[in-house]
Structure formats: structure tokens, C-alpha cells
């Protein structure tokens, strides 16, 4: 059994005086895909933001590689890739410039590789078109191009399939599976019916009692 990358112990989160979840414990192991599921408004995105380190209105414990996350923040941040609802694409920049800016603080990547990654997401020929002229799905793909080069062991992907066409969805599913096979850990939230072999699930919004 390999050691978990990220471990949550008794997570509890209250938002706008409403209890989203409590006593939530799980481990994210290398080589797994985990899907966070639950109806609208049960805190899927909030959970992902908590795990990524964006939201700090929670209580409980988060362990990174067995140690408290807040004491290993730099190592955690360096080794975690988070892509949110709003993926950080500047409408005024081209896909290539956007990808370059997103990768720059993480790992040095030559432009050649960036172009390959963009081509891999089906954006060949659009590398130098400002992103505001691209469709929603294409803009999303610029952000997802990071997945083709990212070396972070843990990926946190919020609504990764939004605005992506059917063929694209299949390709991304395959990518996630391949990543797990390589030993990466992936955590996704999605409304699309994702069911990969060996996939784990975290279900929110079931038995949470709203009264204290």
C-alpha cells in the first residue's frame, strides 16, 4: 500500500451559516482517480477549493504526505495543480502567451513543448489568436493544455468537462486514466456521468444533518 498524498481528517465547513459537510475524512492515494459528487449546492467546489488551499473557512485536519499541510505549504503548492471554474485564461492574450504565463512560475518549459501541448488539445492553428476570439470550449482547452505537460503529482480539477465536446470528453477521460496509471492522483468534480474503472468516489450532500 502506498502512502497517501493528501489526507483529510474530520473536515467541516460552514458557509453562510449553513453546514456544508462535517466529519469528512478521506485519503488521496497516488495512482487513483477520485470523483467528488453530489447535487448542486452541496459544496463540491468548496471542497476542492479547500483542498487546493484557496478557501480557509474550514476546520479539521489536512495532511500532505503525512505532515500538516500548513507546515509544508510550499511543497504542497509546488506539487499540486488546481484548475478551477475560472481557469486563469486572459482574454487579451493568445493561447500560447496564456499557457506560457501559467507554466512560468511552475516549471521551465520551452515554447516548442507548449505548442505541442496546444496542438494536443486541438488548438493547432489558433496559437496566436487572442483568446477572446475563441469559443468557450476552446478557451477551456487552453487551460487543459496544462494537463499535457504538468508534472505535479496531485491534480485538482473543478468541472473539468464543462463546455468540452463529446470527443474531447473521451480524450480527457483517457488522459486521466493514463495519469493514474503513471501514478498520479486526480480529483475531479463533474456533473457529467464519469465512470472510470477503479474510480473512487466522495459523495457530498447525503446524510449531513443541517441542525446542530
Amino acid at each position, binding site marked *: 500500500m502506498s502512502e497517501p498524498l493528501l489526507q483529510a481528517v474530520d473536515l467541516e465547513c460552514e*458557509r*453562510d*451559516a449553513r453546514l456544508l459537510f462535517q466529519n469528512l475524512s478521506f485519503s488521496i492515494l497516488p495512482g487513483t482517480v477520485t470523483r467528488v459528487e453530489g447535487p448542486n449546492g452541496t459544496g463540491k467546489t468548496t471542497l476542492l477549493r479547500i483542498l487546493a488551499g484557496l478557501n480557509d*473557512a474550514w476546520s479539521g485536519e489536512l495532511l500532505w504526505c503525512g505532515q500538516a499541510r500548513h507546515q509544508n505549504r510550499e511543497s504542497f503548492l509546488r506539487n499540486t495543480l488546481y484548475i478551477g471554474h475560472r481557469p486563469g485564461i486572459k482574454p487579451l492574450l493568445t493561447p500560447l502567451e496564456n499557457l506560457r504565463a501559467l507554466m512560468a512560475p511552475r516549471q521551465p518549459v520551452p515554447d516548442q513543448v507548449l505548442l505541442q501541448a496546444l496542438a494536443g488539445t486541438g488548438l493547432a492553428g489558433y496559437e496566436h489568436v487572442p483568446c477572446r476570439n475563441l469559443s468557450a470550449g476552446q478557451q477551456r482547452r487552453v487551460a487543459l493544455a496544462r494537463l499535457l505537460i504538468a508534472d505535479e503529482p496531485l491534480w485538482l480539477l473543478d468541472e473539468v468537462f464543462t463546455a468540452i465536446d463529446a470527443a474531447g470528453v473521451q480524450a480527457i477521460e483517457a488522459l486521466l486514466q493514463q495519469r493514474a496509471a503513471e501514478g498520479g492522483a486526480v480529483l475531479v468534480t463533474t456533473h457529467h456521468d464519469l465512470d472510470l474503472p477503479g474510480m473512487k468516489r466522495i459523495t457530498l450532500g447525503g446524510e449531513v444533518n443541517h*441542525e*446542530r
Partner: protein
Amino acid sequence: MWQFFHKLGSPKWFFGIATRFMPWLLAAGLLLLAAGIVWGLGFAPKDYLQGNSYRIIFIHVPTAFIAQSIYIMMASAAVVTLVWRMKLADVFVKAIAPVGLVLTFLSLFTGAVWGKPTWGTWWVWDARLTSMLILLFLYGGAIALDRAIADEKSAARAVAVLLLVGVVNIPIIQYSVEWWNTLHQPSTFKLTEKPSMPAEMWVPLLLSVLGLYLLFGWLACLRMKTEILIREQKTRWVKELVLAGRG
């Protein structure tokens, strides 16, 4: 020690203590303030330079002094909010900010009215009045920010950051305003500067400062209790307390 600290942070514990102390705070505060004011207005000797208008000092100085110290208290509570995330510190800041605003306004108002018979004008861009005016802005900003953020935890932390930035700035502002004042007008007027004040003047002043402090304590307790009720509605202890008719 740590346990005491923890206890201090518990809204329930505070609620009980505050309820017990409040009548005493109110009674002692009113008594001291009334004594200070009656003494100051009716019995203290006339000032040989300013005449009777100086009697405004017995409310001007207490309001100015407490208005300034409330800002310092809020900034100290801000540290507690940011470092230890103590709920009671959030409540404290939110409850006393409007009190600080009102007292700052009162000190400005009394200062301005005092200026009219003394200097012949309602407003002088004197270093102290200007500093108090800026303090009024700082209070206004903190309250406005608190109102603007819906989530109360985030609001408390954002206000805490603002307060700390403000408290770092206050000495700088004070210093620059004083420098600016000497640059533009040689300061001939000083509000309260006196080489020595006779005891018949400073004793009533001290009484009214103490009295106003105690009344501030009462107001703080009351307003904190209100805020605790709002925030802790869902807890069982508040429910029992409210249904039992205590509070």
C-alpha cells in the same frame, strides 16, 4: 493560563460575565460621569484666559481620549482575530466600531464649538482637529468595509487587516499633520495645552474620563451580547437562554 485564554474566547462564558457586570458598569459610569460634569460645570474655577468656554474640556477630552483608545483596542483585537481566530475578538471589533465613530464625532463637534468663542471661528485646521478628522475617516472606512462583506468571518478578517494597516499609519499621519501644521501656520492656538492645571480642574476631568470609560464598557458589553445572539443563534445554549427569558 492557556485555559483562561480559551475561556475568554468563549462567547457563552463572556455572555454570562457581561450580564453580571453590566449593571455595575452602568451605575458607576453614570455616577462618575455625572460627578465629573457637575463639578466641572458648576464648581471648578473659571479659566483666566478662556473664561467659561473652557468647561467644554470636561467632555471634549474624555471623548477624544476614549475615541483614540478604542481604535487601539480594535487594532489589538484585530491581531487576535488574525492570529488566533478568536470569535470574541471579531464580535468586539464589530460592536465597538460605531461607538468609536460617535465619540470621535463628539470630540470633533465639541472641539469646533469650543473654537468659536476662543478663536472666533468654528473650524481651525489645527493639528489635533485634523488628526481627529482623519480618525473619523478611518472609523468610517472600517465600518463601511465591515458592512460591505456579507460573510461575517471574512468581514472580520478583512477589517482586521485594514485596522492594522491603519494603526501603522496613525503615527505617520499624526507626524505629517503636525509638520504640515507648522509649515502653514505657526501654531498660536493650542486647545488644551497648559503648563499646569489646578487640582480643581483636573480631578473632575479625571472623573469624567473614568465615567465615560465605564459607560463605554457597558456599551461594549451590551453591543457584544447583541452580536453574539445574532451569530450563535443556532447553538443550544443561546436557545435555552433566550427561551428562559434571560439575556
